[in-house]
């Protein structure tokens, strides 16, 4: 067999193998979403979305649970977004390249790898007990914020790194300060990327159980009247219905899973559409 025909065969084989791997990954994702849709979607109707659970979660809907997750996510965003984005801007634009900042980056990267249950324990110790927030939306949101911070910081830095240095220098050479350069030139371009990355991090937090397990949620709670109340939340609701309920109600479980996955997917799709619209506007 000639050299070139062997090379062509290897090329064809590689293409097939790589394509199959991609197909496998795609079908796993589609199969997963399809199955949740198949099991859960039929059970989700207007009543399920707007009523409170009844008879120990075996009947009724999940309205207060949805509201609880929205509260937790919004409070997490309030805590994590400003700090995370500002820290990312500092690290990318201001921090000198020293050993200290390198250690900081490493620590942040490591924080992203800490298991979420550890954040949960940390949250109990610091926010629930030490700071006296008790089991509350604030304590849960602060715990989720700690977990989400590294994602927000990293995606902020990543988005800022995409901006060519030339653009920064053009602004500085015109006599603009660093702050003005960031506000007028860098952020308009990097902003959509920063927001997208941050929302993806938040949507991850919205689906987490372990960090809120001991810090925010209750088996049953009415809709919170303030941030210091405890709350119900979709992932925890799913967990207790699947493990703790005496009378299993599989429809409730799958319906809840469907709502959680659909909610998060919708958030991600909306953000993706918004981002590409921003890109077109800025033409970057």
């Amino acid at each position, binding site marked *: 067999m000639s050299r070139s025909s062997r090379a062509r065969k290897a090329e064809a084989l590689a293409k097939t193998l790589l394509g199959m791997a991609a197909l496998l990954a795609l079908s796993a994702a589609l199969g997963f979403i399809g199955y949740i849709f198949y099991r859960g979607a039929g059970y989700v109707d207007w009543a399920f979305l707007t009523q409170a659970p009844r008879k120990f979660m075996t009947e009724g809907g999940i309205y207060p649970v949805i509201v609880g997750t929205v509260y937790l996510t919004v409070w997490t965003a309030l805590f994590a977004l400003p700090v995370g984005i500002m820290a990312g801007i500092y690290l990318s634009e201001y921090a*000198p*390249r020293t050993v200290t900042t390198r250690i900081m980056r490493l620590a942040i990267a490591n924080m992203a790898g800490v298991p979420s249950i550890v954040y949960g324990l940390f949250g109990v110790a610091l926010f629930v007990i030490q700071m006296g927030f008790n089991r509350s939306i604030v304590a849960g949101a602060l715990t989720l914020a700690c977990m989400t911070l590294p994602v927000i910081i990293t995606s902020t830095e990543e988005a800022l790194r995409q901006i*060519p240095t*030339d*653009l*920064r*220098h*053009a*602004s*500085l*050479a*015109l*006599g*603009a*300060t660093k702050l*003005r350069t960031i506000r*007028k*030139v860098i952020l*308009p*371009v990097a902003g959509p990327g920063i927001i997208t990355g941050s929302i993806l991090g938040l949507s991850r937090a919205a689906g987490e159980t372990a960090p809120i397990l001991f810090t925010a949620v209750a088996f049953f709670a009415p809709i919170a009247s303030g941030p210091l109340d405890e709350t119900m939340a979709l992932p925890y609701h799913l967990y207790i219905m699947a493990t703790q309920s005496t009378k299993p109600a599989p429809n409730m479980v799958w319906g809840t899973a469907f709502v959680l996955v659909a909610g998060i997917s919708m958030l991600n799709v909306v953000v993706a559409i918004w981002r590409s619209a921003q890109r077109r506007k*800025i*033409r*970057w």
Partner: protein
Amino acid sequence: MVTNPTGSFDLENVSVAYGSETAVAGVSMHIVPQSVTALIGPSGCGKSTLLRCLNRMNDELGNVKVEGSIRFDGLDIMDNRLLDPVDLRRRVGQVFQKPNPFPMSIYDNVAYGPKTHGTRAKAELDAVVEQALKRAALWNEVKDQLKKHAFELSGGQQQRLCIARALATMPEVLLMDEPASALDPISSQQIEDTIAELKKSVTIVIVTHNMQQAARISDRTAFMLRESMDRPAGLIEIGDTRVMFTNPGDKRTESYITGRFG
């Protein structure tokens, strides 16, 4: 028009170090106002590094140390109390090697500098933008489409936009770092024509690796060289361009100009 020309530089024993490595050392020169000074020399000879000293852009690279004395119209530019980098850069503009317009409209690109330095009135901005675009010889091509995105312009137009953007803060000096090297010959020619026109009102210091270009557009030429990798680069000589290209004082200048190295 200007009785007492401004925009002169006096460098005395200037050296630049990146970290622990000295890149350029012992440069002393006078830059004549309202003329074109070309910095020539092979790559790595410190031309761009020296250029960036004049608007303190080396400060932005981190870990760069500039020593010696640099006076701009007699003012020590290394002393923030005498001249803040913000004021220095308003008066000493820069055009970069690759066109780097901001991702915004033509108008907003040119208005960016004046707005930075406090011009707010629309009528005033309009006038400044028009004047800057005229001086950069771009006005006739873009006057009806100032709201157009800068990225829709050709490479040569983008570079003239960057010149207009730098001119809009009314600088006395324009630093140009190989401004035509990324452009086609026609755009390159347009930039050279613009420079010839501009030198009537501003001092221009231009880095170029193109010796024909240096000979065509400059009044004075400075030749820089790094003779060996374990020694910093330095200034070999500076003088009238015609003399430098016909009868250089130094053997090394002659070898470089006649194409024996570099």
